């Protein structure tokens, strides 16, 4: 059976060059980067080279990059670390209504420690209005966090404008760029952000490797306290192979970004344009233009996402019905609800995400396979029956 993998927002395969770069550090180069002897120093050099490559991808200084074990850890580090470091300045946080769970729940934890927060709403495309951020900022606000690109609906937020507002207000801005880095050009200086989260598994690097950019001069407390790793900012023996892989992936992403983007965008557009031609009552979620190049997300009316996902899986097609981080939660996505999509429709969410090796044939196979799947499930759906009855009246 043909296998078509269209859930790359949850996982990308390692680029073979990335694996190649990692292997020596899984074989004989097993030194601990903090060891002062040669084996340790060899690992340290590799670590710093990776840091440099990653910094290069996002236009940061090497010393502004802190390794983490995931995008979620980077988000927790940024939110908790910056909020707690600036506690003397105030106790209020501003975030958008379409943040990732790791940002939302970090804020919940901070609320238990005495912080309060304001959720900035989004429009029907999931876009945050920079002016709304300005209005949400209070005298007590110590941090603003706005996602750069949504993993659920693909929308790319106007972070440059939001950063300008935050700068004027003297409040640092964090952006969750996990879904963005490696897929669209991201430059921390151009964005003007004070902190930025990323994860290697979004751009052909290994799982278990992420990073937080923290602008020079911005204050942050560690999330993981302990030894001197990462300049005392993030303790724990470093995942050397993973970090080296992330560095290599960053180098490749930098070199290939525009080429990758263009290829994926064409196929994404093929899917966005044709799916609604093949199936009725299918709605694109997120913004049509301001979206990730490899991301096409829809709500399919009258049916539920998991049932579609499983049916497509049986046909060899892997897709998701939202964020992998909430795949087992039974509730509708908070992102879709924040965009004003109603509960029933939000349950029918499907996310297709591409990779640089996705082909037009893959998309066409999907376009052939999906209509009967939807048709079959709709025939089972009491909501569809009701809709048909009502439209006959």
């Amino acid at each position, binding site marked *: 059976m043909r296998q078509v993998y269209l859930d790359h927002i949850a996982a990308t395969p390692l680029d073979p060059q990335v694996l190649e770069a990692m292997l020596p550090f899984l074989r004989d180069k097993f030194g601990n980067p903090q060891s002062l002897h040669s084996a340790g120093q060899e690992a340290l050099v590799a670590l710093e080279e990776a840091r440099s490559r990653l910094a290069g991808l996002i236009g940061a200084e090497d010393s502004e990059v802190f390794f983490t074990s995931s995008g979620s850890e980077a988000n927790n580090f940024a939110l908790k670390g910056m909020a707690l470091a600036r506690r003397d300045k105030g106790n209020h946080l501003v975030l958008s209504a379409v943040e990732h769970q790791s940002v939302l729940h970090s804020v919940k934890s901070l609320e*238990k420690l005495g912080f309060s927060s304001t959720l900035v709403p989004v429009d029907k495309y999931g876009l945050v209005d920079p002016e709304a951020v300005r209005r949400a900022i209070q005298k007590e606000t110590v941090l603003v966090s706005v996602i750069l690109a949504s993993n659920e609906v693909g929308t790319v937020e106007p972070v440059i404008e939001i950063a300008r507002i935050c700068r004027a207000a003297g409040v640092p801005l964090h952006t969750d760029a996990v879904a963005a880095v490696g897929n669209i050009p991201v430059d921390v200086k151009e964005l003007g952000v004070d902190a930025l989260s990323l994860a290697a598994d979004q751009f052909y690097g290994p799982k278990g490797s992420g990073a937080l950019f923290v602008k020079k001069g911005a204050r942050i407390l560690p999330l993981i306290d302990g030894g001197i790793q990462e300049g005392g900012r993030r303790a724990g023996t470093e995942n050397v192979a993973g970090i080296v892989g992330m560095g290599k992936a960053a180098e490749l992403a930098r070199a290939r970004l525009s080429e990758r983007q263009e290829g994926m965008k064409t196929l994404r557009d093929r899917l966005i344009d044709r799916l609604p031609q093949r199936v009725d009552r299918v709605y694109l979620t997120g913004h049509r233009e301001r979206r990730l190049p490899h991301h096409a997300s829809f709500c399919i009316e009258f049916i*539920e996402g998991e049932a579609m996902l499983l049916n497509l899986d049986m046909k060899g097609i892997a897709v998701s019905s939202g964020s992998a981080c909430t795949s087992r939660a039974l509730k509708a996505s908070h992102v879709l609800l924040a965009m004003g999509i109603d509960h029933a429709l939000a349950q029918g969410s499907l996310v297709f995400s591409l990779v640089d090796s996705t082909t037009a044939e893959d998309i066409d196979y999907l376009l052939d396979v999906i209509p009967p799947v939807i048709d079959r499930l709709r025939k089972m759906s009491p909501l569809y029956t009701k809709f048909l009855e009502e439209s006959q009246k």
Partner: protein
Amino acid sequence: MIYTDKVMDHFQNPRNVGVIKDADGIGQVGNPVCGDMMSFYIKVKDSKLEDIKFQTFGCGAAIAVSSIVSEMAMGRTLEEAMKITNEIVAEELGGLPKNKLHCSNLGADALHAAIADYRKKHAAEKSEVSPEAEKCYCPYCEGPIEGLEAGCTACNVELEECPHCGNLTKKGEEKCAKCGADLEAD
């Protein structure tokens, strides 16, 4: 797989899907906000379920549960059908992920509601529909839960009850994991 082979079989080839136009009883439970909704249609003859059809909006488990409930009840007396419980359904399916056990309630509930509807219409005898008291399962680790106070002893999550639907949700969540109702922040 998250589901057993039997669940997948019923999910892929659901028995008795559809609508009975001149049904003797119709039962509907759930709603789209919860992410699941089931309609059961029954034809009754000599106190037996002569025909059953269902429609389901919901996940794989919900579809499989509806299918097997219809199969289990087919040809049975109303009395027998009323004895179908979520435990029996889940067992029949070879088990369900614990966070999907509530779907098995739904199947039996929808059938029972259809039977109640039939009984009401035919006024043969009045009977209260009293679905089994729901067993509680932690929506996070899927472990059984003794009491709210203790939280989930399996995964240690602190739980609170959704005032809207009674579902258990992690403390501090903004929305009920089941019905989506807003929970007050603590």
